């Protein structure tokens, strides 16, 4: 197991460097520059700008310097747009916002999805099963950027129950709508995965054994079936995190939250190279580490899985 973790970590580091290189390359290969706008700058000013940001040096020196700072000091430099603010500061300021929305949304999805899915599996082919599965398909099909504004329309502008947008601290009612919006798709997916996993497990021999030795249905489902039935949900956590990260981008835009996603969109539009690279690298690291954690958790929960 330890060898597996170490081997995966060894692959992870070059992957992150490749991601950073791709991002750097995309920004540099694209026509135009962060300072180029509608008006053409006078040649002298342009020369000064290029000198200040080291753009007059050959590309490999610039690339080398960027990479060296990142590898050696984990320093992504200062933002070009938010003058004088280091990228690391911006990330550490905006990350908690995104993380809170994302984690709450995923927890809510687990809390709703698992019971709905297990119940549908236990009552397979019943009305409940069909209606809940049709509902989950709807949850998967309604894009979150449609769901979000509709929730705002109903609960904020129609019923006046909740505020429509803006950030108001970590514990506020403002978070209810963003979390609901983000959570809907995951609820639906998790319910479907739980149902599929439970259906498979409920047919297996060890469940028959558990029933045969006279355990209550409750104990059979909760103690025996769920453990096996939730395996698909656990392996979904890896990809879910990736989607969660992109999902927060939309949700943060709709609800005007000062999270990582909002900064990323702004930075991309502004061609704010250090900030874009910083956020992309951060997201890549989070994703790769989370995937590793999921794989390790998988091995612990399913004794049949063995990594070399």
């Amino acid at each position, binding site marked *: 197991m330890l060898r597996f973790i170490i081997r995966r970590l060894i692959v992870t580091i070059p992957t992150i460097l490749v991601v950073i290189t791709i991002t750097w390359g995309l*920004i540099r290969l694209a026509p135009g520059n962060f300072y180029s706008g509608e008006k053409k700058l006078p040649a002298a000013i342009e020369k000064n700008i290029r000198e200040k940001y080291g753009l007059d040096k050959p590309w490999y020196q610039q690339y080398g310097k960027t990479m060296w700072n990142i590898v050696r000091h984990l320093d992504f430099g200062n933002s070009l747009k938010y003058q004088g603010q280091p990228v690391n500061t911006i990330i550490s300021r905006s990350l908690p916002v995104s993380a809170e929305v994302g984690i709450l949304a995923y927890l809510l999805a687990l809390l709703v999805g698992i019971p709905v899915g297990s119940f549908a599996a236990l009552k397979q082919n019943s009305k409940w099963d069909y209606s809940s599965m049709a509902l989950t398909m709807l949850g998967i099909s309604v894009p979150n950027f449609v769901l979000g504004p*509709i929730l705002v329309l109903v609960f904020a502008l129609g019923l006046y129950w909740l505020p429509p947008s803006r950030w108001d601290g970590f514990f506020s009612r403002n978070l209810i709508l963003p979390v609901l919006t983000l959570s809907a798709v995951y609820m639906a997916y998790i319910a479907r995965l739980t149902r599929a996993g439970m*259906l498979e497990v409920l047919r297996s021999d060890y469940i028959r054994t558990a029933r045969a030795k006279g355990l209550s249905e409750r104990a059979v489902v909760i103690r025996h079936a769920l453990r096996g039935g939730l395996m698909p949900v656990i392996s979904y956590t890896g990809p879910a995190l*990736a989607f969660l*990260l992109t999902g927060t981008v939309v949700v943060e835009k709709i609800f005007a939250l000062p999270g990582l996603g909002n900064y990323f969109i702004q930075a991309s539009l502004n061609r704010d190279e250090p900030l874009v690279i910083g956020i992309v690298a951060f997201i890549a690291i989070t994703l790769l580490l989370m995937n590793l954690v999921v794989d390790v958790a998988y091995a612990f929960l399913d004794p049949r899985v063995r990594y070399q």
Partner: protein
Amino acid sequence: MDKTPKHSRNPTTVEPALSPLGVPPAESHDPDIIALGPEMAVAEGDVRSAEDGESVRGSSLWRDAWRRLLKNKLAVFGLVVVAVITIASITGPAIIKAASGVTPDYIPSNDVKLIKSFPPFTGPDGKFSWSHPMGTDNAGRDLFARVLQGGQISLFVGIISTLVSLLIGVSYGAIAGYVGGRVDNLMMRLVDVLYSLPYVILVIVLLSMFRSQTPRGQLVLLFVALGSVSWLTMARIVRGQVLSLKNQEFVLAAHATGVSTSRIIFRHLVPNTLGPVIVYATLTIPQVMLTEAFLSFLGFGVQAPLASWGSLASDGAQNIAIFPWQLIFPGVTMALTLFSLNFLGDGLRDALDPQMRTD
């Protein structure tokens, strides 16, 4: 074809070009061989139908699958809705142009004071009217025509990008699976690495940096970006299929008769993976459409005057408080389409591969 003995048809695989003796048809056009005996007469039948391709696909497996699909009410519902929306999107804008004389992106007036977004079924005088069944947008354009036009682009992006991903994914997966060994290991390790990348994030970087000056250029960029990231799962599926197929006799037979490797891969192995590939492609279309809408919503995708459901929803979301219909119509149309495509894909999976059923 009905005389084909059962043992030559493996129910889970389609090998249109295989005789019971495993003689690949490409090498067995010689009429002398076919005239040898009753065994070979069957081979002749297979060879002939392999040449006109379709008739074999129409035989057992595909007809069975079609029958199973028609029994699935939700899948039929999905098929009908997708067909209706597709036909309406393709023909709608032209019909509207013929009826009212304006294209979907026609802006009635440039005078800011005159531009007003009308609710559904309301004319400029505020009374009931059939002229705008979905209302109008901020610039006074008919929203119904815009939604149909947006459907064209959304479906187009979904289908083209899926075709791109098919092309890359199937070739990549088939080559990796057939060649095997170190090449396979390397190719699939690359897929693993790409899998773990935050690709939507990279697509946003790509689209924002290379932002094209023309709407058409941006559309092409979108195809490239979406197609080039959605082939990974396809490659894995095809590789898995090829791995399980490549040790069967018909491949050995093809190999023994001197068929080239590339021909074995693309003429003998790939047609056999068609079932899962079709299923996955059907499920890729809604995914790609959703990603496109997501990118357009953020302003990186389709640019005005072109429209997609995502960009229309994006415009609508900004006016949700005053003109809710601007979001609701494109949004609901899109959700309905995705809903139907998902059901269709699920139904196809159940129909084409009953063993894959989850219930």
